[in-house]
């Protein structure tokens, strides 16, 4: 039943009342005008038929009801319905034609709305098309960049400001293999990978220092705001790194034709790596040869020359003459031999020095004082600084050297304050670190420059002298007679003063290729604790192990680990970890059909002591996922003492998660789940095969968990804990 509109009731009631009133007033007026006899006649005539009069009144009210109903429907309900329909169209994407209804005006309005909806639809389609086109272009640019990067012979790694790797090329991958401490085990994948931290390879302070330099240069409006540094890796390799900033892009004001411009705000950096270990060794060899040719020859020639000149004295004893002649013969013979040696030497390649970069002297002094005060309880301040000087330096190692010297002064000579001075001696810059010696002198510090540089707990493989030699400089200790202060003097090469280019020159120079447009740098690190992180945003290592049996505490050993990574909801098939392990015990023959690993296969493979640390590095900063993870984690735990690594990562178990999603299923074995999720099983019962199946299952579980209201890691772990299976223990 349709509800009666209150307006119709009210309207009809109003008309009824008015009629009644009109009837009563008219009746009263007529009554007042009548004579007494006429009144009696009227009462006699109407009195018995008064009911008819009211019937007529009621009858007319029905007509009023009908007419009012029509009017309300026609002029009021139809626009109201139109309003509702239009609101639906506005709020949703529903595409439909409204049926014209009601008054002609209302009908016209309906048609107008229909036209607007059509217009909106065509606009939307156009926009979709453009978005698709744009993303196609982006994809194209991405592919072009990827192709270009993979062809490059230089390793390139792109990171965001948190040091997370966003992009790397094939060359970088091979290079990182050389940096790996366990190259036979992990082959470098434990170091490089999307989303991994570059700080596992490079010292965070080193990168921060380079970034700081770049920032300084940007602020000064430098033409080439890049920085270089040389570093030794844990594996003892020497790397030369060039860092180029990736800057935020400012979109032009709408309507103007300007291209987007770069701002000074950094969003990340590009690292180009060169392994110069080999160059460095070549270099040392070249140095040796060069030395023997120049300085060695100088001495020999001096000997011969002196002898020849003495020979010219007429009054020489015959014995002395013979001795001098033999000196000449001796030296000439030695020189000939040396030249021959030079020729056969292989060191003919071009000389490669450390990359020295040009740096404003005052900036360097400022950095030195800051670094010393940050690292040591020593007050450092600038003395006289010639601010017109520009130096050619490798600032990181130089800073390390100075901090090292200041540290030794503090530790061994109780020096509380040092001053830094920079001046020029004409050909070179003299960087002096001055202090006031407590005791009799500078004897105690002699020879310090030959010791290996130590900063904090780290020891570099270089000495202060090495650093200076690399700068074609030198260093020594001297004492100022007038003030009694002692100082280390570091002679450093000068650079021509730089013109301070305005940043416009660079920004408009368009030296940067266009394929930098795509937005790699959006994903920034969220500092929330992992438990609050969304399951869709985490990085996972999904792994599986094979073992000699089911009792890790009772002597069963892991014989294979396979693992893949899930980053940004994508399974990275090429960033995998697969390793056989020598269990140092027999493999029970009855288990061989299950895992397919024979004793011959594990012979000569690394042992768990070297594999687990590499795997630990591979899993750094990820969430571990495994099917029946409790077993694998127990295997790792048993080895904690032997390997020294603790797997304290958050862990998710696909077995438990399956029980959360399908509590009524009987089996939560991997095969059964794979069947339910329609995941193909390939190479089942190798660690790698199972890891991939587990990963694919896990990725399908994430949306199903979300349907159950489980969105974060913490929620998933809590839900898994509550299942029946979680109560089983190994």
């Amino acid at each position, binding site marked *: 039943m349709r509800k009666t509109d209150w307006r119709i009731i009210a309207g009809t009631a109003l008309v009824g009342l008015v009629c009644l009133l009109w009837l009563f007033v008219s009746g009263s007026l007529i009554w007042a005008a009548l004579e007494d006899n006429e009144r009696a006649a009227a009462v006699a005539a109407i009195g018995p038929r008064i009911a008819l009069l009211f019937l007529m009144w009621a009858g007319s009210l029905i007509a009023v009801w009908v007419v009012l109903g029509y009017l309300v429907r026609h002029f009021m309900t139809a626009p109201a319905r139109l309003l509702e329909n239009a609101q639906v169209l506005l709020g949703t994407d529903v595409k439909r034609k409204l049926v014209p209804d009601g008054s002609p005006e209302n009908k016209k309005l309906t048609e107008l709305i229909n036209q607007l909806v059509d217009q909106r639809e065509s606009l939307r389609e156009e926009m979709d098309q453009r978005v698709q086109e744009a993303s196609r272009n982006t994809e194209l640019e991405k592919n072009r960049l990827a192709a270009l990067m993979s062809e490059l012979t230089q390793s390139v790694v792109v990171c965001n400001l948190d040091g997370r790797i966003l992009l790397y090329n094939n060359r970088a991958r091979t290079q990182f293999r050389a940096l790996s401490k366990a190259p036979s085990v992990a082959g470098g994948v434990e170091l490089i990978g999307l989303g991994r931290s570059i700080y596992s390879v490079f010292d965070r302070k080193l990168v921060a220092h380079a970034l700081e330099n770049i920032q300084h240069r940007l602020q000064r409006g430098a033409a080439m705001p890049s920085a270089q540094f040389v570093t030794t890796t844990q594996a003892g390799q020497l790397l030369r790194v060039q860092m180029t900033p990736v800057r935020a892009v400012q979109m032009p004001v709408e309507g103007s034709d300007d291209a987007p411009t770069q701002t000074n705000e950094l969003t990340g950096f590009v690292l180009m790596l060169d392994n110069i270990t080999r160059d460095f060794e070549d270099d040392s060899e070249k140095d040796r040869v060069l030395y023997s040719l*120049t*300085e*060695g020859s*100088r*001495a020999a*020639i*001096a*000997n*011969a*020359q*002196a*002898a020849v*000149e*003495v020979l010219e*004295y007429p009054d020489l004893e015959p014995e*002395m003459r013979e*001795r*001098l002649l033999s*000196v000449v013969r*001796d*030296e000439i013979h030695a020189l000939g031999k040396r030249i021959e040696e030079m020729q056969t030497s292989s060191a003919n390649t071009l000389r490669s020095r450390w990359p020295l970069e040009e740096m404003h002297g005052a900036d360097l002094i400022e950095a030195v004082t800051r670094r010393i005060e940050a690292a040591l309880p020593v007050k450092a301040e600038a003395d006289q600084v010639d601010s017109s000087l520009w130096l050619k330096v490798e600032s990181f190692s130089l800073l390390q050297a100075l901090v090292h010297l200041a540290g030794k002064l503090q530790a061994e000579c109780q020096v509380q304050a040092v001053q830094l001075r920079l001046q020029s*001696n004409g*050909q*070179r810059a003299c960087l002096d670190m001055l202090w006031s010696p407590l005791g009799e*002198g*500078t*004897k105690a510090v*002699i020879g310090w420059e030959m010791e290996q540089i130590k900063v904090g707990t780290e020891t570099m493989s270089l000495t202060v002298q090495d650093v200076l030699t690399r700068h*074609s*400089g*030198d260093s*020594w*200790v*001297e004492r100022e007679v007038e003030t009694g202060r002692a100082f280390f*003097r570091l*002679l450093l090469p000068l650079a021509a003063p730089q013109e301070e280019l305005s940043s416009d020159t660079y920004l408009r120079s368009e030296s940067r290729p266009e394929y930098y447009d795509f937005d790699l740098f959006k994903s920034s690190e969220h500092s929330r604790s992992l438990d609050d992180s969304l399951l869709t945003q985490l990085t996972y290592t999904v792994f599986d192990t094979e073992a000699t049996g089911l009792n890790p505490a009772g002597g069963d050993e892991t014989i294979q680990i396979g693992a893949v990574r899930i980053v940004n909801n994508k399974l990275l098939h090429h960033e995998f970890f697969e390793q056989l392990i020598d269990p140092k015990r027999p493999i029970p023959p009855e288990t061989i059909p299950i895992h397919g690993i024979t004793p011959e296969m594990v012979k000569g493979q690394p042992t768990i002591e070297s594999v687990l640390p590499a795997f630990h590095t591979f899993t750094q900063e990820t969430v571990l996922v495994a099917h029946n993870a409790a077993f694998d984690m127990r295997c790792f735990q048993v080895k904690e003492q032997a390997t020294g690594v603790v797997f304290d990562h958050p862990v998710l178990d696909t077995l438990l998660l399956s029980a959360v999603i399908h509590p009524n299923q009987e089996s939560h074995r991997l095969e059964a789940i794979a069947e339910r999720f329609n995941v193909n099983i390939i190479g089942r019962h190798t660690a790698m095969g199972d890891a991939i199946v587990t990963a694919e299952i896990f990725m399908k579980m994430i949306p199903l968990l979300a349907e159950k209201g489980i969105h974060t890691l913490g929620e998933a772990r809590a839900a898994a804990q509550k299942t029946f299976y979680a109560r089983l223990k190994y």
Partner: protein
Amino acid sequence: MSAKVLIADDEQNILISLEFLMKREGYQVRVAHDGQEAVDAVAQEKPHLMLLDAMMPKKTGFEVCQEIRSNPDNADIIILMLTAKGRDTDMAKGMALGANAYMVKPFSTKELAQKVRELLGAAA
């Protein structure tokens, strides 16, 4: 009394000539074959002038120079450094550490004798 000259060089081949030359110039000559020997020789008998080679075993010429100069009694010893290192940094270092003059190998013996005469003459 003639001036005492100490020649410190590890190369026998140049010691022969230098010793002959200095003796012929009329000086009392003593030789040392490495850095330590040079320091000991100075401690035993203070020379007026030293011909000091920069590159020697045990102690380099720079170290010898610094050690000798650290004793105020030795302030008047004239040190002439002889070195095969021709770089300006070495020269700056030698002079900074207390050498009075610096000659780069190879040198002419006449110039050397002249230089020694000058240095001793200036000191006298």
